[in-house]
């Protein structure tokens, strides 16, 4: 199998069970799903349906209770903390609902951060970020710290940070939940463009109808299970 044939994500019988005091919570139940490279997929469902937990399992932020997870052909479920950190650095980009930019870094530094950890040269980092900032309408705001940016601007910096290091996969957890309609649409335009032009694989956890409407594949989750999986033309 060549690298391009390897799916971006594959899960096989994945379970995540949390112990909340005396109660056992089955957040993800026996989920098997494959997401190919270049997909623009939304995991949808009501609150508590397990979509964020599934995203965390795929990103190696939490280990599965049972089952196996592969990202870009590498099995995540058995990795050490060190290897998981390396995998996240090299293969996964994250976009969070709360933006989660580092407050002590400027917009430019935030966007560069994963590439800095990857060891890319300063020139290469700057070129990539400036190009993406131009695409996302962030040009001229490079030196601002997150506190001086609007929510929509912060989320665009987070998108640039997630894609600039050219990961196999970008996991976006409710990326539009804190944005107004105009900002949400603008952000979705940016991500759709990056998906189309750069082939970046996006997986969203969302209950925003706008995101679901844009997704080319919609995976509906209910009570930790996949309820439906629909691919659109």
């Amino acid at each position, binding site marked *: 199998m060549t690298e391009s044939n390897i799916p971006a994500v594959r899960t096989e019988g994945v379970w995540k069970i949390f112990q909340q005091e005396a109660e056992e919570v089955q957040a993800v139940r026996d989920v098997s799903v494959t997401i190919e490279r270049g997909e623009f997929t939304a995991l949808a469902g009501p609150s508590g349906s397990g979509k964020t937990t599934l995203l965390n399992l795929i990103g190696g932020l*939490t280990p599965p209770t049972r089952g196996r997870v592969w990202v870009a052909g590498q099995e995540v479920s058995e990795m050490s903390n060190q290897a998981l*950190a390396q995998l996240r650095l090299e293969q996964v980009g994250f976009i*969070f609902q709360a933006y*989660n930019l580092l407050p002590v870094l400027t917009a430019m530094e935030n966007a560069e951060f*994963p590439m800095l950890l990857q*060891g890319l040269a300063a020139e290469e980092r700057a070129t990539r970020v400036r190009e993406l900032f131009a695409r996302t309408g962030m040009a001229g705001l490079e030196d601002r710290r997150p506190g001086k940016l609007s929510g929509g601007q912060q989320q665009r910096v987070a998108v640039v940070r997630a894609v600039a290091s050219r990961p196999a996969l970008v996991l976006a957890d409710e990326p539009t939940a804190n944005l107004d309609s105009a900002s949400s649409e603008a952000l979705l335009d940016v991500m759709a463009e990056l998906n189309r032009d750069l082939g970046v694989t996006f997986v969203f956890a969302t209950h925003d109808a706008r995101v679901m409407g844009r997704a080319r594949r919609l995976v509906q989750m209910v009570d930790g299970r996949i309820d439906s999986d629909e691919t659109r033309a």
Partner: protein
Amino acid sequence: MTAPPARPRSLHTRTILVLAMRNLSRQARRTMLTAAVMVLGGALLIFSFAIGDGSHENWIDSGIRTSSGHVTVEQPQFRVSRKLEDRLTSAQRGEAERALAMPDIAPLVVAVSSRLRIGGLASSAAGARPAQILAVDPVAEARFSTLDDQVVEGRYLEPDDRLAAFIGVGLASSLELRIGSRLVVQAQDTENEIAAQLLRVVGIFRNGVPEVDQTVVHIPLQVAGEWLGSDEDVTNVGVVLQGSEAVGPVTRHLETTLAEPITRGEVRVMGWREANPALAAAIAIDDFGNYLVFGILFLIIAFGIVNAVLMSVLHRHREFGVLQALGLTPGQTGAIVLVEGLTLTAVSGFVGVSLGLVATWYFLGDGLDMSALVGEDMTFSGVVIDPVIVPLFRAVRIAQVVTFIVAIGAVASIYPALRAARIDIAEAMKFER
């Protein structure tokens, strides 16, 4: 997609440093408050050590000058027997004096006084009192002792003096003696016979230590040699050094140079600690008390740092989650916190030590006058305490304080660093509505 290059360690170190520095400046008020505590602690520690060392040096100097010096060369039995028969011969005395004049050790030596110390009786028409008779070379003893600076009437002994006595104010009072009064001293001579000597009082001193003021009588060594038949023999060769730190090298030098008579059991070399165990114990107890107070002080400071760093970690729970989600390892995340704590303590420690040194330097000239608290005539363990404490600067104290502060910084940052490293990323990233 091609695999990115392996992560260079130096790059990560720089990234960790940058994040740590910016985090410290982000919480400027908290950082400044914690740093202020450390600065104060460091300055206090340096200054307190300098004052403690200075006062101890003062005690030692005062104690050794009224007794047998920083280092003393004696006949081994003399310290117990206090008998004239346990004395150094003039040959042994000469050998010790020559050893102390050797060029490699001479710069450490401030004064050498060869003395004959004997117990006897001092009497006048008004009565008799026990006396510590110290037969000295007036010139050498004036450099050695401080008694010549404590004259209240008359003068100290001079090289041409014959049958002269320099006595304490207590003895003068109890025997009703004044300048020019006649005084008879009696002691056992080298033939174990009681011998008496008539002297005239040429000077009276006030030392402040009652035991010294009431019993000590200085007389010329030559007079004692003729009176007791001891010629130029002495009971000890006392040495005053530049400071108590020179005791070790000078003692070792003397033990090497005088190895033969020492092996034969004729000579013994002692440092002041051995010769004045009460003074040494007093200083050790005082030191212990100081270390205890400093220890408690720094324990409180350490808790302050733990609190500051830990609060900072708890407030940045989500941030550490983000860092690890972006690819930082748990170890690197902990390293940021550790670097923050260490930088904070190292910088504030440096400033604190510098401030402490400035304060020490300020008091180096005139000292710190404590007479309002302790009075003018305080004695302790047979030693007159000078109420003006001149701080003593010791490089080793800086090394100790810096090591101590950095160690506290490291220890106090370890727990918060572990908390940051062991964060549950998914939990930290949960969005709170």
